[in-house]
């Protein structure tokens, strides 16, 4: 049920006291929060603290979120602020930390690495919604480095090699539609 619910529905259910909806939000956005915590190059315990503090603030403030559909951007901001707070703590306590990048200090500037994290999350979520056959094909073609040859993909997925190109195009079109980037081909 929750896998299909959109963010706004999950947030509304959470505020109404639905613990399963909260769990679904943690599952959905946990990787985003974790990626933001990890990109700051804190030590392991502090990364864990950023993760925990982000969700602690979120659960305390969720009822005040005016636009439930804006949860993705909101939780990202909280994670970013928690990371900055942790790094400022380091500033007075540690000498071995690398300098804080300027982009981390100016909170008003868009942060390229966070945009990339959000894009990866958005695309991975969309891939999980376009059907197993398409998801398997796109994961096989793109998730591996170096990309496997079509012959290998065809063998693995039980497809004719000649159908991989056209099927990939159809799957990318479904993905494009899911992402809201444009019309299907």
């Amino acid at each position, binding site marked *: 049920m929750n896998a299909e619910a959109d963010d706004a529905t999950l947030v509304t259910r959470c505020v109404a006291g639905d613990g399963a909806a909260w769990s679904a939000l943690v599952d959905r956005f*946990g990787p985003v929060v974790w990626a933001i915590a990890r990109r700051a190059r804190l030590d392991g315990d502090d990364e864990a603290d950023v*993760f925990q503090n982000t*969700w602690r603030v979120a659960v305390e403030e969720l009822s005040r979120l005016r636009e439930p559909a804006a949860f993705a951007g909101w939780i990202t901001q909280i994670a970013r602020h928690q990371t900055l707070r942790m790094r400022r703590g380091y500033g007075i306590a*540690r000498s071995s930390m690398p300098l804080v990048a300027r982009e981390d200090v100016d909170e008003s500037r868009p942060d390229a690495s966070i945009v990339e994290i959000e894009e990866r999350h958005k695309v991975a979520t969309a891939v999980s919604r376009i059907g197993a056959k398409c998801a398997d094909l796109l994961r096989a073609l793109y998730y591996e480095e170096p990309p496997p040859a079509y012959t290998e993909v065809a063998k693995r997925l039980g497809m004719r090699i000649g159908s991989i*190109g056209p099927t990939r195009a159809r799957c990318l079109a479904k*993905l494009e539609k899911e992402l*809201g980037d444009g019309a299907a*081909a």
Partner: protein
Amino acid sequence: MAQRPDRSPLHPPLRWFADRIDGKLAAARAATLDAHLAAGCAACSAREAALRRTVAALHAGPLEAPPPSLRRSAARLHATARVLAAFESVKRVVASLVVDGRAAPAFALRAAPGDERRMLWAMDHWEIDGCLVTGPRGADLLGQVLPLDEGACGKIDGELAARRGTRTVRERLTEDGRFSFRDLTPGVWRIEGRVGTTEFALPPLVVERAG
């Protein structure tokens, strides 16, 4: 929601864009595609840019999941928050640090073994007296929670927890309000607790490394 671009049947198919991104588009088709884009088709230019972002995100792969223990404790926060909200008589306050006898200057990066840092936090009707002693494996925080009203007597009931990352150390207050946290590793610790019906949190406590 993104607006659907205006695309006539003469627009190149998505497969051409995908093939070009993958370096597999035949030269003749590439030339046709370039000519189409050069003619100023904004919809196809936007489509190609979006597809490039998508393919880059696909190549980067899905984000790493957080460790299961962290995921579980984050999932439990909702239930904890609801339990706390149910206790309307419980008052949650943030204690303020009113005295900080940091032995070293503010920009000191390391504390010497045996350094003592005395602190006093105030909140509601209570004070917390603390002493952070730096040792070889970390620091010990020794302290006492005392009522502001010096005439108040009786046993003190409460507990504290010091958290950092996945580590949580719990301490029950003695009857006269004393507590001790041993071997706190260098880093930022969060200390929370309850005394009587007052839930409280201290400002983050930075434990410096010795030596």
